């Protein structure tokens, strides 16, 4: 079904490293592909708009932060989250593409979890949105499994030798949410105030949640 590569055509081949300053050449190739697909009736531009809108506005790490805050204030919810995260997260309205099967892993004083996808860029979209560039970078993908403590150090997180670092390599369709430790001194905060403290990186496992 699939042929090999044909290097005679330039379309779809990459020439630059820096997506931030993508040359207009890439933008033009994208436009050319979109108009071909639209003219052939393969994509509807308004559907593309709807897809973009979904990932710009409907999903993102604020969803995951709500899950974490709920688990911090509601022990029964936390128990459900750790037993069946997919169902517990669906209780808050988050589910679907790239979150069909979610597992929550809990950070404790003795164990620190962090998540990577060494083979591509697997990430729990419904609760964290699309992954940041560093998560998808060759550097993070290659180093997290062999020298996680060095990577965490670069994020400003230094763990004692007697803390276990547990790296989860997302090789299948299981998506991971790190349940960070609730910072001390936050007993008086409301669930919404707690959610505001929870960062994306803390839910990937490259940071701790800081008290305000």
């Amino acid at each position, binding site marked *: 079904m699939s042929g090999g590569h044909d290097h005679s055509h330039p379309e779809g081949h990459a020439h630059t490293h820096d997506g931030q300053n993508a040359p207009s050449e890439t933008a033009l190739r994208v436009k050319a592909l979109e108009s071909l697909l639209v003219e052939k009736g393969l994509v509807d531009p308004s559907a*593309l708009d709807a897809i973009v809108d979904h990932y710009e506005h409907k999903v*993102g790490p604020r969803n995951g932060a709500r899950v974490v805050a709920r688990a911090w204030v509601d022990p029964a919810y936390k128990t459900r989250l750790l037993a069946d995260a997919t169902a517990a997260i669906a209780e808050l309205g988050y589910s679907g593409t790239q979150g069909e099967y979610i597992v929550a892993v809990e950070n404790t004083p003795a164990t620190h979890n962090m998540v990577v996808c060494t083979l591509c860029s697997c990430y729990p979209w419904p609760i964290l949105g699309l992954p940041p560039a560093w998560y998808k970078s060759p550097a993070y993908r290659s180093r*997290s499994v062999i020298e996680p403590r060095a990577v965490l150090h670069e994020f400003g997180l230094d763990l004692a030798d007697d803390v276990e670092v547990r790296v989860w390599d997302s090789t*299948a369709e299981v998506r991971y949410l790190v349940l960070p430790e609730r910072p001390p001194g936050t007993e008086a905060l409301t669930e919404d105030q707690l959610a505001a403290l929870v960062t994306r990186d803390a839910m990937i496992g490259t940071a701790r949640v800081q008290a305000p």
Partner: protein
Amino acid sequence: MNSVHDMGGMHGLGPVVPEPNEPVWHAPWESRVFAMNMALGAWRRWNIDAGRHVLERMPAADYLRASYYEKWLYGAFQKALQFGLITRAEAETGQPDPSAPKAMPPLAAERVPEIFAAGRPTIRTVERRPAFAVGAAVRTRNIHPLTHTRLPRYARDKTGIVAARRGAHVFPDSNAQFQGENAQELYAVAFKARDLWGEAANPRDTVCIDLWEDYLAPA
């Protein structure tokens, strides 16, 4: 396949550089590339594993040089071409072949929410009983297929402990080849960092990898 996508444990790929307040997209074309991939997927000419295998076969130097969404652009183009949504002539000219039938209707905007809500679960109900219990010692197979696999190189021929069972999931190695789902138990297998990387690793640290039963043998 042993291509450059299988990065776990490689050296020399630089520092991790977080970007403060990173936007979802860095340029509008990135969002169009992302959306085209999603919309083309709705034709169901390929599955997620076959799609990943297309990217794995991107020439290695290009793969390393490309930004993330440049890879996705390559992927959208190659999937459309390799799985028959566009022809070679159309790819080269950018013009639709007037003799080709128009493929209608494409995914409509109003169906996008339901598509995302449904997702594409890979868990299945199967007759095959799981071979390993939680706590069992397992050894990963020493395989090097030219085709798609989700057993990373760094975890081949290694011994670990089953940490959890995830139910039966579609097996990527066969699914990517359109040779059937072959759903089977998926396990989270915990490896001691020292068993993967040697004495330099912290003796407490572990790497947990989701591995299908066909990757595993009793240890």
